[in-house]
């Protein structure tokens, strides 16, 4: 077994097409040793295909996969030494928990006392020490998930691949497992690639996130930057639920940009991105960065009169939908501790220039 191939994962120009559909369309990615990277994107964006190519379950049309410097692109699945956790867990139904975890070790000719010690250590790590004799069908979803995790990690793979492992769990258990997964990954220091369509999972777990759309990487950056400085309108729209407005550039200085929205409102953004006069842009406004106040604050760059259309309380925060005079509706999220407004209240909608995200429009500029 190639125990040496651990650590850094590198994808070079990876491609896979099904007929005329480009599932993965030239992906370059470098995951550092011990790093936790998420592949985030909607279904059909190619994230699972990338994962299965790395595992060796799908053969790429072209491109290279390097693990710890070794080219494993054409290496047989069972010689790659990677761990994979499936969305459906894929436990062996005819084997008990102990044998499920021992499976990979037995294939590596680990036997006797050593086998027992290693399996029990990993069952302990996922808090299933006393469940070794049970069968998968006798376990809850969360327990099955933990068996799958122990089974994938017990062989000390150079790389751990997770294919939406939390999506079959209910909400409460998912939060719990999310923390446990992160703890385990940090404890073992295994390089991890995590596929998900859930942006919240990606944001909490990852060191870096690769946002994918239509088989390409749109942005590969830290969670903070993917969220705060999205590089494309797609990323901005997929991570978080921002208000996206179309606007035209009306002027700019060294560090700020002036725009007019399609609804006729003027907006100032603090950005060093360069756009030509009259260029069409997309403005992303995060609901939690917007503020509502009863009277205008002269310190804030952008302020528009609005009326409350709808209000919904959700525990920690209150969601408002407000109508701007032009008819545009904007979503605002305010901490529950702030003042409560009623439907029909006339207010000022404010946002600081630093919080206005300006992105090139998807449509070609005229």
């Amino acid at each position, binding site marked *: *077994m190639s125990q040496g191939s651990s650590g850094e994962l590198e994808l070079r120009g990876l491609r896979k097409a099904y007929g005329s559909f480009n599932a993965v369309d030239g992906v370059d990615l470098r995951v550092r040793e011990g790093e936790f990277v998420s592949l985030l994107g909607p279904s059909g964006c190619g994230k699972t295909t990338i994962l299965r190519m790395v*595992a*060796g*379950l799908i053969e790429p049309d072209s491109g290279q996969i390097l693990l710890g410097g070794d080219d494993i692109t054409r290496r*047989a*699945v*069972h*010689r*790659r*030494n*990677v*761990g*994979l956790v*499936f969305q*459906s867990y*894929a*436990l*062996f*139904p*005819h084997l008990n928990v102990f044998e499920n975890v021992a*499976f*990979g070790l037995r*294939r*590596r000719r680990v036997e006797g006392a050593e086998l027992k010690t290693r399996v029990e250590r990993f069952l302990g790590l996922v808090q299933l020490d006393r469940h070794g004799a049970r*069968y998968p*069908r006798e376990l809850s979803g969360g327990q099955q998930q933990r068996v799958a995790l122990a*089974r*994938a990690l017990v*062989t000390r793979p150079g790389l751990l691949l997770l294919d939406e492992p939390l999506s079959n769990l209910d909400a409460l258990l998912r939060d719990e497992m999310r923390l446990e997964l992160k703890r385990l990954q940090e404890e073992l220091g295994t390089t991890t690639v995590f596929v998900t369509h859930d942006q919240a999972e990606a944001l909490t777990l990852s060191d870096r996130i690769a946002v994918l759309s239509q088989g390409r990487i749109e942005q590969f950056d830290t969670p903070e930057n993917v969220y705060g400085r999205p590089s494309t309108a797609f990323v901005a729209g997929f991570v978080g639920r921002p208000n996206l407005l179309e606007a035209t550039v009306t002027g700019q200085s060294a560090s700020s940009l002036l725009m007019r929205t399609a609804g006729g409102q003027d907006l100032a953004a603090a950005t060093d991105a360069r756009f030509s006069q009259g260029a069409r842009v997309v403005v992303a406004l995060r609901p939690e960065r917007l503020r509502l106040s009863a009277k205008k604050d002269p310190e804030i760059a952008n302020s528009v009169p609005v009326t409350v259309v709808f209000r919904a309380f959700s525990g920690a925060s209150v969601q408002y939908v407000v109508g701007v005079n032009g008819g545009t509706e904007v979503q605002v999220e305010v901490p529950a501790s702030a003042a409560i407004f009623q439907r029909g209240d006339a207010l000022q909608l404010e946002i600081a220039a630093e919080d206005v995200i300006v992105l090139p429009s998807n449509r070609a500029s005229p």
Partner: protein
Amino acid sequence: MMRWLDRSGFGLLSPSLMLLLGAFLAPLAFLVPVSFRPYVPGRGIGEGFTGEHYVRFFTDLYYLEIFGRTILLGAIVTTMTLLVGYPLAYFLARTKSRWRSWLTILVVFPLLLNLVVRTFGWIALLANRGLINETLSAVGLIEGPLRLMFNFTGLLIGLTHIFLPFMVLLLVSAIQTIDRSVEEAARVLGASWSETFLKVTLPLSTPGILSGSILVFVLTISALVTPRLLGGPTYKVMSTLIYEQFMSLLNWPRGSAMATILTVVAIAIIALSGRFARRFGAQ
């Protein structure tokens, strides 16, 4: 009573239960008592109680040989259909070919032909002056004709062919229910293709292997038409023996005893396989 029927679900089973009681248990209830009655030549079933038919069956070497031959035939036909059927079923369950449904129909097709017609087909092939022997001697591979009929070989070939579709159909559905990602998990964990097959695919197809084997075994030991045609008047198995007792010799008590023995064997095999299946944790 009505509430018990509702709650236990037996109410839903009742139509099929009635049918089973009428068509299966009632003849048995008739058969068993008759098998303990003496046979009076010329009159048929006599008065009184006797175990002579059973004693005779288990002490007469002629009967024991036929009994042993029947069980052996069942075991070998089951093994043959399993060996030939598993690769075929595996292919049918896994192929992505657009011909798949046609191939499945091809497997089932023999079932659509009349049993007698199929058996006569085999006679045309296996007879002393049949297609196989004529071809082989024309090519010069054999001197005289091979004896392919009226013996074990003939029955084996004919019965394996006839029961193969049952085995394949049961295996296909068992293999299809295996979650592919479980096999992929084995591969990723370091199992080669053959290890994956032996440690995962094969154990997970045990329910299909068991049900297919039971079905083929029971059908083989009770098959009548094929053994009668391919075995001829002298080469007998249990079913042809029973048929002869009832229809030619009119010895109903002895025929009943033999039928009871065959039924007990079949039920015992089914019960044992059920326990075996549970032991091996087949879901």
